[in-house]
């Protein structure tokens, strides 16, 4: 159920908040709220994953991903 919710959130937020923010928030929610991982680990993992995926696809593979306000 939570997974479903996250997907719906992602679909809504993807073009409004931008890719990196959306993915980082979704991951942080799943890791912290659902899987009860540590706060520091979850935050670092979520942000690192979002940044790395963006770098890989948008920057290296030139697949356009949405940017949110303030260009993030």
């Amino acid at each position, binding site marked *: 159920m939570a997974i479903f919710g996250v997907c719906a959130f992602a679909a809504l937020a993807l073009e409004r908040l931008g890719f990196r923010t959306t993915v980082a928030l979704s*991951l942080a929610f*799943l*890791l912290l709220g659902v899987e009860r991982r540590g706060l520091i680990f979850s935050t670092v993992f979520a942000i690192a994953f979002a940044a790395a995926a963006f770098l890989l696809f948008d920057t290296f*593979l030139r*697949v356009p991903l949405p940017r949110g306000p303030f260009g993030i």
Partner: protein
Amino acid sequence: MDDTLQNLALGFSIALSPAILWYAFVGCVVGTLVGVLPGVGPLAGISLLLPATFGLDATRAIVMLAGIYYGAMYGGSTTSILMRIPGEAASVMTCIDGYAMARKGRAGAALAIAAVGSYVAGTVSVVALMLLAPPLASFALRFGPPEYFALLLLGLFVLAYMSSGSMLKALAMAALGLLLGMIGIDQMTGYFRFAYGVVELGDGIGVVPVAVGLFGLAEILATAGLAVPPQVIKPTLRELLPTRQEWRESAAPIGRGTVLGFLIGIVPGSAHIISSFVSYAVERKLAKRPQEFGQGAVAGVAGPESANNAATSGAFVPMLALGVPSGPIPAVMLAAMMVHGVSPGPLLIKQQPELFWGFIASMYVGNVVLLILNLPLVGVFVNLLRVPYAILYPSVLAFCILGVYAVNGSVVDVWIMLLMGGLGYFLRKLDFETAPIVLGVVLAPMLEMALRQSLAMSDGQYSIFVARPISATLLGVGLILIALGLQPLVTRGLDWRARLALAEKGDEHP
């Protein structure tokens, strides 16, 4: 024959160029990862990585996607041998004897035999693919719309007949897929159908969101609840060499598995799964000591593993020669080729020889890469399984969203994936197979085009389908298959499909 060799030389000159070699290598590595990780099958893997190939040209993209496909087939065997978890469905049979061997301390040998068997099967069946596809394509040049229509219809019937479980359920799923495929702009008249005012639906429902939803998301939903820490048996490098007797015992099953797998692969349907089941059954029948099966018989690893890899190449025959996908994975690859502006079909081999022969040659290369990659690096891949599922699935989920969004840059696709994920989860609970839906979505526009063109040719006379010999034959075969499928309803016996479904269930919950 001379032509073939010449063409092959052209192919190798392309496949061995550093750039293509690199993409084949990347594809194989990614494919192995996809195969090793439970919950990401080859179908979801290919769909997810489709956007990553958009920046490449067509040949590179297809070489890479094919690498992912057969890489996943290799990778799946690793987890089933070491942990009794099939990384993908086709490795279910390998689990039984592979894991038994691993418990006896022969994990290394089982892995080596699986890898060598896959290698032999892969290479031999590529040769067969190479020899078979061009003649088939030139034969298919005589096909008009009515023949295509009959062929596509036959494909759906065979799929329904071959799928494990009820034929009725499989046909129902195929029909659902066809209906979903109807959504969008009518190709003949430009009329919007079933779009309900959503402009994005005008393009129709794409294969990728449907495939990722049904296979990726539904899988995550199904397994997220029951993440049990799996036990990993770690092989040491020294154990990798099988004994001479093990080699001898596996040689014949590898040969038989290759032939069987290739033949089954050509026929539409969930080829890999069926081919490994059939091969296992055959080996058991032919074995001198059938009681050893289940206790770690080498033949029980060698046969099915070879069969599922041979089926991979077999599945490319109708895809490349006819432009007709024989299962959900070739269907997604077909969609990928279309994205890159390549239209597969009888003309592909003539018009774009670099692509076709480069692809063939890259499959030879890819098989070698995989053999090298899999044997010494097994330990590395196994370590990946230490990553807890709690971290793995959110990451996979993020990739699902990314992959689906990036194909068209459309949020509507993400919603479609979400709906399909929910649908796939429930259908799975109800024992429906979801593969025919994906196939239906891909086939719907082709089928519709063929039907309407034929009817335009004949001024609306349906008799055109029976009046032409090839299409009449194809339709006849389809009818026979349906009749065969209905037979157990009459005789009330468990046919082999039902038994297969039972066996599969038994294996999935040990």
